[in-house]
C-alpha cells in the first residue's frame, strides 16, 4: 500500500487528503474495490480508509429543517412538528442496516434488501455508501432508495450539499459525485405506508441481481397515490418506471391496475442480454414482479 495511505478521522481530513492527491481512492468496506484486484498491483493508487470517520457512520433521526417540511400529498401527519428524517451515514454497513429497529419498522424494504446483499459475511463489511458510489446497475440498494425518495448528502471542499437521489446516477457507473468529493449520508423522508421489494438474483444467496423492483406508495380511499416504482439491472442506471407509476396514480388498488402497470413497465424498459440473463427474461420477470408486488403491497 502507498505510504501516503492512512486513517483520516474527520471528513475534512479526508477531503484534504483527496485534494493532495487527486488519484486517491476513498475506501469503505472494500468489498467492491478488492474484487477488482487493484490493491495488489504495483501501480495501485493511494487509498484512504473512511471507516474511522465517526461522522460517516451510524443511523440517526434528524429534524427536518422547517423550510423542507413538505409532505407528500395524502400523508396525514401532525402539521405542527415536521416529521424527522432518517440519516444513514455512508459507511454504515448492510449488516447494521438490516437489524436497525427504525429501518426494520419504518423502511422494511431497506432492511430486506440489506439482508439480501451477498452473504452475511459481505453484509458485515459492505456499506450503503459504497453500494451507491460503486454505482453498478445491479447495485441492490439503489432502486430501494429511489422508491423511498431518498436524498444524498455530499461533502466537497466547498461545503456540504444535498441532492435528491433521483439526480445522483448520471449514466453507466457515472454519478453526481465530483472529483475530491465524498458521499457522507443518505437521508430518508418519513416512511411511506406501502412498500415492496423483490430481488431476482442468480441464486438464493451471494447472487447478483438480474432484475430488481422496489416500490413505495401512499393510498387514500382505496386508491394509490405518490406511487414510486424503481427497477434495477434493466438499464445502465437504476430507473423509475414512470409509465407504470402514472398508471397507478389515483387508480384503484386492484388487479386491473396492477395488470395495467405491469404492461406499462414492460413497455418502458430496454434491458440487454448479458452473461447473467437475457433481455427477454428481464422484461418478462420485471413485468410479472411489478404486478405481483402491486397485488401484495
Amino acid at each position, binding site marked *: 500500500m502507498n505510504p501516503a495511505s492512512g486513517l483520516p478521522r474527520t471528513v475534512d481530513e479526508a477531503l484534504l487528503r483527496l485534494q493532495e492527491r487527486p488519484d486517491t481512492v476513498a475506501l469503505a468496506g472494500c468489498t467492491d474495490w478488492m474484487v477488482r484486484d487493484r490493491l495488489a498491483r504495483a501501480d495501485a493508487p493511494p487509498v484512504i480508509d473512511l471507516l474511522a470517520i465517526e461522522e460517516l457512520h451510524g443511523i440517526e433521526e434528524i429534524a427536518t429543517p422547517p423550510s423542507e417540511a413538505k409532505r407528500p400529498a395524502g400523508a396525514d401527519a401532525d402539521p405542527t412538528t415536521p416529521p424527522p428524517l432518517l440519516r444513514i451515514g455512508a459507511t454504515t454497513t448492510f449488516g447494521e442496516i438490516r437489524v436497525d429497529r427504525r429501518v426494520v419498522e419504518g423502511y422494511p424494504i431497506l432492511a430486506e434488501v440489506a439482508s439480501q446483499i451477498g452473504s452475511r459475511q459481505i453484509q458485515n463489511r459492505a456499506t450503503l455508501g459504497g453500494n451507491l458510489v460503486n454505482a453498478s446497475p445491479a447495485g441492490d440498494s439503489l432502486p430501494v432508495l429511489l422508491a423511498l425518495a431518498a436524498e444524498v448528502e455530499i461533502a466537497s471542499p466547498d461545503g456540504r450539499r444535498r441532492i435528491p437521489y433521483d439526480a445522483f446516477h448520471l449514466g453507466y457507473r457515472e454519478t453526481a459525485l465530483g472529483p475530491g468529493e465524498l458521499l457522507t449520508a443518505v437521508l430518508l423522508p418519513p416512511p411511506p405506508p406501502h412498500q415492496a421489494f423483490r430481488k431476482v438474483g442468480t441464486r*438464493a*444467496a451471494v447472487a447478483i441481481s438480474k432484475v430488481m423492483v422496489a416500490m413505495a406508495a401512499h393510498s387514500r380511499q382505496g386508491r394509490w397515490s405518490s406511487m414510486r416504482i424503481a427497477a434495477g439491472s434493466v438499464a445502465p442506471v437504476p430507473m423509475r418506471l414512470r409509465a407504470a407509476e402514472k398508471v397507478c396514480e389515483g387508480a384503484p388498488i386492484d388487479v386491473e391496475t396492477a395488470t395495467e402497470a405491469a404492461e406499462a413497465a414492460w413497455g418502458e424498459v430496454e434491458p440487454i442480454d448479458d452473461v*447473467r440473463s437475457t433481455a427477454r427474461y428481464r422484461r*418478462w420477470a420485471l413485468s*410479472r414482479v411489478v404486478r*405481483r408486488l402491486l397485488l401484495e403491497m
Partner: protein
Amino acid sequence: MKHPPGILGSSPLRRDGLEKVTGAARYLDDLPAEGTWVGATVRSRHPHARIVSLRFDRTKAPADAVFVHAGDIDGVNGLQILDDRWPILASKEVHYVGEAVALVAAPTAEDALRAAAAVEVEYEQRPAVLDWEEAARNEPLYELALDEGRCEAILEAAANGDDGLILVEGEYFTGAQEHLYLETQAMLAEWVDGRLAVTGSMQCPYYVKNALQHVFSLGEDAVQVVGRYMGGAFGGKEDYPSLLAAHAALLARAARRPVRIVYDRHEDIVATTKRHPSHTRIRSAVKKDGTLVAARVDFDLDGGAYLGLSPVVLSRGILHATGPYRVPNVRIRGRVLRTDTPPSGAFRGFGAPQSQFAWERHMDRIGRRLGIDPLTLRRRNVLHPGDRLPTGQLMDASCGAAAALEEAARRGDFLRRWKKAEEDRRRDEPLGRGNRPVATGVGLSLAFHGAGFTGLGEHRMRSPVTVRLTAEGRLEILCAATEMGQGAVTVLPMLAADAAGLRIDDVLIHEPDTDVVPDSGPTVASRTTMVVGATAARAAHELVQRIVQWKEEQMGEAALRVEDSRLLGPGGEIGDFRELAREYLAAGQPDAVTVHNEPPPWQRFDEDSYHGSAYPTYSYQAQVIEVEVDTDTLQVRPTRAVAAAEVGKVLHEVQCRGQVEGGLLQAVGWALWEEMKRKDGQLLNDRMTTYIVPTFLDAPEMEVHLIEEPWEGPPHGAKGVGELPMDGPASAVCAAIENAVGIALDSIPATPERLLDHHIEAAQGGRR
C-alpha cells in the same frame, strides 16, 4: 455406534478430518516459497488459429526469467492418455481458447506474470468448429455401437402403428459442467541428478508418471510422483494434472530449480477439462401399457479439441443409455464429436449422467404420451434379478433397482404429491395470470451405475496392493489411491483392519508416492473402495495369517488367531499384535505381502460387439425431488430430495451418505444453474460470480435412505457409490418443474431464461 471388532458400519472419524478443518493440512500452495520459482502459462486467445510466430522479448521480462515453448520438448510433445495427440504445448496451431502455447517461470508470481506478458504470439485465425451441427458434419473423434435384437424393424412397425406399438421420439441436451473443486490445479516439479520428482494435486499418480516418462523419454526409475492433499477433484484431476506436471517439469528443467504452478480460479475454469456436453436422440417403441419394446439411442458427446478420455466416457455413456430397465431390442450409437473448445474430460459419472438424463426424460415423455404416471411406468420396466441388460448381461440377486425405486417413491410420498400437483396445475394454470405466486411439483428418477472400470479393464490391470509391517508393528497399506474428500484414507484402513482382525489404529496408509507404492490403478470409476479396498483387505489378511502361522510354528501350537489386535489361542489371550509383529520382524521374516485384484472370473465382455458383462455389478439410486417454481420469475427452488441408494453394503455410513448428498447437490447444480456460456469460443463466465453453483441456501433438504443388496464379490458385497448420486437427480428436477408448471424441459440447465424461452415457444408454436 458399534466398536471393533465390528469395524464395518462403525463410521470412524475421517483420518484427514482434523488436519483439514484446522488448516494444519498443507496443500501444494501452502508449501514455503523459498527456492521455488513460479510458473505461468501463455494461452491461446483464439478457438482456432495458426501460430505465425512466437517470440519472447527478453527486454520486457525480468532478467532471470525462463521461457519454454514446444521446440524445447525433446521427447514427445503429446499428453499420453488414450492417444497422445493433445499437445503439451501447441506448436503449429491452437484449437481452443486457453490452450497452452508457451511457459515462463520467474522467482515470484509478479515476475512470472511480467515474463508471460513479454511473450508475443502472432496468430492467423482459422474458422473454428463451435456448435453441434457443424461438429456433426465432420469426422467424429470416436464411435461406438451396441445392438441387440431387431430394433429397427420394431421401430418401423411402431411408426406404422402396427402390432399395437407406439413410437415415442425425443431429443435431449446437457451442458458442460465445471468441476469447481476448491483447490485449483497445482503442481511442483524438480529435477535432481537427472531424476524428475513431481508432487501436487492429482487423482492418479501413475497416470502422471506415465505421461512424464512419455514426454521426457524417461525410464520408469527416473520419475517420482507424489500425490498430496487434494482439495477436491470430481474427475477434474484425472487427466489434466498430467499436462500440468509436464509444464512444471519443463520449466523446472529450464530454470534448474523447483518450479511450482498453481492456477488461479479464472485460469482453472478457462483452461481445464469440463463435463462433456451431450446431445441424445431417442426413438422408442412401447406397448400401450408402457412396456418398453425397442429403443434406438443416438448419443453424441462434445469431446472438445482432443480425444483425451472421451472414448471411455462415451463407452460408459452408451452402456447406461437405457437405464436400469428391460429394453429387449436396442440400437445404440455413440459418437464423440470434435469442437474447438477445451478437451472434455472425466467428471463424476463419466458419461452416465448425460445418457441417463436423456433416458429418464424420455421415460417421462413416454408416460405423458400414454397417460401413465412416472412411477407406474418405471415399475413396469424396471430391471429385476433374472432380467438382462442390452449387453445380454444377466442381472443377479443383487439388482436393487426396484428396491431403490420403491423406497424413494414411498419415502418421498411420490404418487400422491405428483397427482396433486398435476391437478393443481390443470386447475389454475400457474403461468397464466393466476394468483398463485409459487407452484410446487415433484419429480422421480431412477438410475444405475456400473462399478469399477468398464469391460475388462480390471482384468487387464489386476491391480496390486501391498501391505507391509512398520517397525512398531503396525500394518501399512501401500497403494496409489488418493484422497480427494471421498474418504479413501479412512475406508481402506477400515477394510484392511477388519480383514486382519486388527484395530483401525493398527493400520496405516502410505501417501501415494510412486517410489514406494505399487500401481493399484487410478482413483476413478467408483473403484477405490470396491477394488483397491478389497485387495488391501486380502493383502492385510494374508500378511497377518503368515505372522500367525509363523507364531504357531514357533509355539508348536495350532489354532491361534488375531482379533481386535490381540493374539488369541485356545486358552485365551496370548499377547498383543504389535508385539507379535515386532517379534516376527526381528526374526527376519518377510515384512510385506503384495496381492492382486481378482475380478470375477466369470466376467466376459466383448469389446467389439459390446456384449457381455460390462461391469461385474451395479448400484442403483432413485430420487424424489420436490421444487417450488416462482410463477413470476420461473426461478426454481429445490426444496426436498429423498434419495434411496442401493449400494450393496454400507461400509462407512457417514461417508456413504456424504457421497450421496454431495453428488445429489452437484447434480442439482448441473440441472438448474451451472452453465458454461461461450461466445465465439470464448468463455463468458470464468469466475465464481457468473458460474453459478448452489450455495447452502439453494440446497434442498436431503433425506438419504441406504439399501443393501450385497453382490457376490468383495468387500462384503459393497458396490461403488462415488458417482451413482450424480446420475439421476437432474432428470428428477426437470420432471418436478414439469409437474409444477407444465414446462417439459429436455435440456439443462433449467435456468429461468431457458424455461421462459421454452414456455414462450410452446405458447407460440403449440404443444409439441
